[in-house]
């Protein structure tokens, strides 16, 4: 054993010495030269001593020594790393070859850079959204607790404060449960530091939020239960981004107080840069500040307002947590004051891994994206293989010569693989830069409603992935020509393997197969992109129930607080005055067509208040029916949104003391009064009788693609709105009126925050942004694939024309016309393309079926897409073949014949 250990130590020592020797070639060589020179001098001297004449003495010395270069080489190999030397030779030779063919090198590196760059970028997206854990401590323990998907929007996905307390005390699977207030909209915080109030977005969280997620503030402290006490002095945690942007990264900010929403609010801490609430919980929305949710103050009785996020105890499985939650749901009450509401949540409390909630629905899209980009890489490799093969054919003689001079087959293949690796390496570096740019750009696309996108960056995993695909690509496109060369017959190649010889034809067959593959892959990509594009167009055509064009919204600040107002009638009256004034003033601005107010805009937040039922029927009859989404609006809102209405709109006369009136959506009207006009009918709820004065179109409230639940509209003068968004319909592009509308608002209320003027179209755009994102990427890849395929076709046909120059020349000399020559080349092209398209079309129909669930209003076998793609591919192939065909038809027979 000691023997063995010694040997190991010895061989380590040898390896170390060899590496050292490898890096000190020059001094070692000089040393050896001197030593050998001395050796020869000793020998010469001895020979002379023995009586030889000097000439003969030197000759004998050299003979006895053996070959000097061989001895040196042997010593070098013994002391250094011979394989590294060979690699160095290969590299030097490769660089020399590539420099000699700059055209080929540039094209190859560019193709690879595009393929690899796209792959790194998409890998980073997939890694961020799907593979990497959420940016929280032990994030696999975190669960999102919500009912199965339903039609009543956020109200059905949230719980009351009583339910929260009961859930917490009646479950044992969770270390703790937290949540946040789900109904706060954008720009709900106004910061005043002298001058114009500055809008910001804050979110209320339960005090233990950061403890449960495992986030420590970068500065200061997190919330305590005391901060959330009713009547506690207001405190706020700043996000890193807002702290930098708004407070110039003030290092002493903790403890300072600012006027936020009219109250002196103390900053207790700054969150770490890695925490981005919006990125995880409300994609596409930027959250600036976090405030503690006062659970025991006014929100107590506001109904379902909190989302649940739980942290499982170590070792507790999801199934156990589900059973536990189910048991708790049976006894949870909506409001403890109303025992009848206990059990309302039965079956509606289901934990799912938080990660699934955040990005689970994107899995399929991401996999499709990943496959698409993988196909791009494949096409790029096939294309390069083709280029390399063309080169290999041209270099056949060179390699045959090298073999004849003693290079082994392995050595030749190694040389080719080295070339591929060098190209792939260069492509990867360039691709990495490309990916860096793409990823940077994507991370700043705040408008794309994809979770975690803002945390996108290139990390170690992405770099590893780069190396992996580079090696994969190099092997793939280097191996084909490598094997071909190694398998080639030495003598065959050494004989003139010029035009018309068997070798050339064999190469061409391989290249044709490669081109057919490329066209087929491009076809699949194009069909996929085409289907996604059609789906996207279909989504844009969806009747939203409102007209997003030429309308914009702005958040309006108002104060309707009347001290001592018990019934709410006084503040309702005050609101009427304020809103009527605003609407009249803004409505008089030239270019404004219609104005109205609403508390929640479509495609954003929403809420439900339970189900009013037709007069004379009971709530029990409709136990399983979800309540409609509730919107509190001013007169004119329906018209300003461009929603169709039958019956009448609200008027300012629908006041707090008059008959309670509502507008309902068509879906609700059909449900309660099928085949009857609902206008004039009466609904009842806890508050009394509601007269239906109008029926409006169903509005896509939650998202553009799914049909939604019902909507019910209450007038702002009879129900309390949760804030107010002024909607303006204009005859001019809405943004051109931004300053005059803001001016008017500020004139009426100097405290009006400088909030954003948002075109309604932007809301729709935001809602469809994930679909657009995926569609655009797949389309970009498809175009790239098409270009590469065209390049491939061009390469093969062009090469074949060059190879047949002599043959064409002879035929033309014998009387073939230009037209005939041209037609023949084009036929050859189309034959290749047709085969590729046929294979691709068959494969595409399979792939289309796989992505069927991502399509919208489009069948996987959509004829328009398939016909379009086939036509496009054929046209591109024709173009790619036309250029060499034209060249063929211009061959001068005399020149062609003379040239050989």
């Amino acid at each position, binding site marked *: 054993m000691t023997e063995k250990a010694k040997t190991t130590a*010895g061989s380590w*020592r*040898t390896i170390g*010495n*060899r590496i050292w*020797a490898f890096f000190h070639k020059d001094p070692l060589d000089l*040393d*050896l030269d*001197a*030593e*050998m020179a*001395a*050796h020869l*001098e*000793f*020998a010469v*001297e*001895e020979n002379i001593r023995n009586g030889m004449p000097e000439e003969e003495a030197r000759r004998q010395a050299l003979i*006895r*020594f*053996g*070959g*000097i270069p*061989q*001895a*040196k080489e*042997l*010593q070098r*190999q*013994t*002391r250094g790393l011979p394989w590294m030397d060979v690699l160095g030779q290969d590299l030097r030779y490769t660089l020399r070859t590539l420099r000699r063919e700059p055209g080929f090198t540039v094209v190859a590196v560019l193709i690879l850079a595009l393929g690899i760059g796209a792959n790194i970028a998409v890998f980073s997206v997939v890694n961020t959204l799907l593979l990497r854990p959420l940016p929280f401590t032990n994030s696999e323990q975190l669960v999102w607790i919500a009912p199965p998907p339903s039609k009543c929007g956020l109200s059905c996905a949230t719980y009351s404060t009583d339910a929260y307390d009961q859930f917490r005390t009646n479950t044992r699977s969770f270390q703790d449960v937290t949540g946040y207030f789900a109904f706060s909209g954008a720009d709900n915080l106004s910061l005043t530091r002298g001058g114009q109030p500055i809008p910001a977005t804050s979110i209320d969280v339960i005090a233990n939020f950061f403890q449960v997620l495992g986030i420590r503030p970068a500065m200061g402290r997190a919330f305590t239960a005391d901060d959330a006490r009713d009547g506690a002095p207001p405190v706020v945690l700043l996000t890193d981004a807002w702290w930098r942007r708004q407070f110039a990264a003030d290092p002493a900010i903790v403890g300072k107080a600012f006027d936020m929403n009219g109250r002196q609010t103390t900053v207790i801490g700054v969150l770490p840069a890695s925490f981005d609430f919006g990125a995880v919980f409300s994609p596409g929305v930027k959250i600036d500040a976090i405030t503690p949710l006062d659970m025991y103050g006014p929100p107590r009785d506001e109904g379902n307002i909190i989302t649940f996020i739980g942290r499982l105890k170590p070792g507790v499985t999801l199934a156990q947590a589900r059973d536990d939650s189910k048991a708790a749901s049976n006894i949870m009450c909506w409001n403890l004051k109303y025992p009848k509401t206990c059990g309302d949540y039965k079956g509606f409390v289901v934990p799912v891994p938080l990660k699934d909630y955040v990005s689970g629905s994107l899995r399929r899209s991401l996999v499709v994206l990943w496959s698409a980009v993988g196909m791009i890489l494949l096409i790029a490799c096939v294309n390069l293989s083709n280029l390399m093969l063309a080169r290999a054919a041209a270099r056949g003689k060179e390699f045959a010569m090298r073999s004849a001079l003693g290079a082994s087959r392995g050595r030749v293949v190694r040389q080719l693989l080295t070339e591929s690796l060098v190209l792939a390496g260069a492509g990867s570096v360039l691709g990495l830069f490309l990916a860096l740019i793409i990823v940077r750009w994507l991370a700043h696309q705040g408008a794309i409603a994809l979770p975690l996108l803002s945390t996108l960056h290139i990390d170690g995993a992405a770099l590893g992935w780069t190396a992996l695909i580079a090696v994969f690509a190099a092997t793939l496109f280097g191996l084909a020509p490598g094997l071909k060369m190694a398998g080639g017959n030495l003598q065959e190649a050494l004989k003139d393997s010029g035009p018309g010889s068997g070798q050339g034809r064999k190469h061409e067959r391989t290249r044709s197969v490669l081109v057919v593959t490329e066209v087929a892959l491009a076809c699949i990509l194009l069909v996929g992109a085409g289907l996604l594009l059609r789906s996207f167009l279909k989504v844009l055509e969806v009747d939203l129930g409102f007209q997003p064009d030429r309308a914009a919204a702005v958040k309006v600040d108002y104060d309707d607080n009347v001290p001592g107002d018990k019934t709410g009638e006084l503040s309702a009256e005050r609101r009427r005055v304020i809103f009527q004034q605003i609407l009249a003033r803004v409505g008089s601005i030239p270019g404004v067509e219609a104005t109205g107010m609403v508390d929640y805009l479509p495609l954003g937040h929403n809420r439900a208040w339970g189900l009013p039922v037709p007069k004379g029927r009971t709530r029990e009859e409709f136990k399983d029916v979800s309540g409609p989404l509730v919107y509190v609006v001013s007169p004119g809102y329906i018209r300003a949104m461009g929603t169709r209405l039958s019956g009448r709109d609200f008027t300012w006369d629908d006041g707090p003391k008059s008959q309670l009136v509502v507008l309902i959506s068509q879906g609700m009207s059909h449900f309660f009064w099928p085949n009857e006009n609902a206008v004039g009918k009466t609904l009842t709820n806890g508050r009394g009788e509601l007269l239906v004065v109008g029926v409006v179109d169903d509005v896509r409230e939650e998202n553009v693609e799914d049909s939604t639940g019902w909507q019910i509209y209450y007038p702002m003068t009879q129900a309390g709105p949760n804030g107010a968004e002024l909607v303006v319909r204009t005859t001019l592009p809405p943004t051109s009126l931004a300053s005059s509308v803001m001016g008017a608002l500020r004139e009426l209320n100097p405290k009006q925050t400088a909030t954003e003027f948002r075109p309604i179209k932007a809301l729709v755009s935001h809602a469809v942004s994930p679909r657009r994102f995926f569609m655009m990427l797949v389309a970009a890849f498809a175009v790239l694939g098409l270009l590469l395929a065209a390049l491939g076709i061009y390469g093969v046909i062009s090469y074949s024309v060059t190879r047949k120059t002599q043959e064409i020349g002879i035929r033309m000399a014998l009387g073939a016309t230009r037209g005939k020559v041209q037609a023949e080349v084009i036929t050859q092209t189309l034959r290749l393309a047709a085969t590729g398209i046929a294979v691709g079309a068959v494969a595409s129909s399979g792939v289309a079926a796989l992505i069927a669930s991502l399509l919208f209003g489009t069948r996987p076998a959509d004829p328009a897409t398939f016909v379009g793609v086939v036509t496009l591919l054929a046209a591109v192939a024709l173009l790619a073949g036309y250029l060499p065909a034209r060249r063929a038809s211009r061959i001068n027979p005399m020149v062609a014949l003379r040239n050989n």
Partner: protein
Amino acid sequence: MGESKLDLLQGTLDLMVLQTLAAMGEMHGYGIARRIEQASGDEVLLNQGTIYASLVRLQQRGWIAAKWGTSDNNRKAKFYSISRSGRKQLALDAAHWQRLSDVMGRMLAMGQDGGGR
């Protein structure tokens, strides 16, 4: 290392170099080569140049050491000397060779007796 013939020959030269240095003390490359030729009664036909591969190998293993010095006739030369671990290795290798040549001797003697035990 492997058991191929080449290795055996290489090993042989290494062993000869070690033995020479052990017996003669510090020597330069030419001296070692000449000494081996003489000791073998000129039966080993040595390409003297190949000794340098052997020397660098032994040096890298730490069995011999080298330093530049001046010869008797005032010529600069690189002198080699055997190290302590070189001596140990020499003992091991010598024993190995002794056994091998004993076995070979017995094997070859067998033919003259007409074989069999």
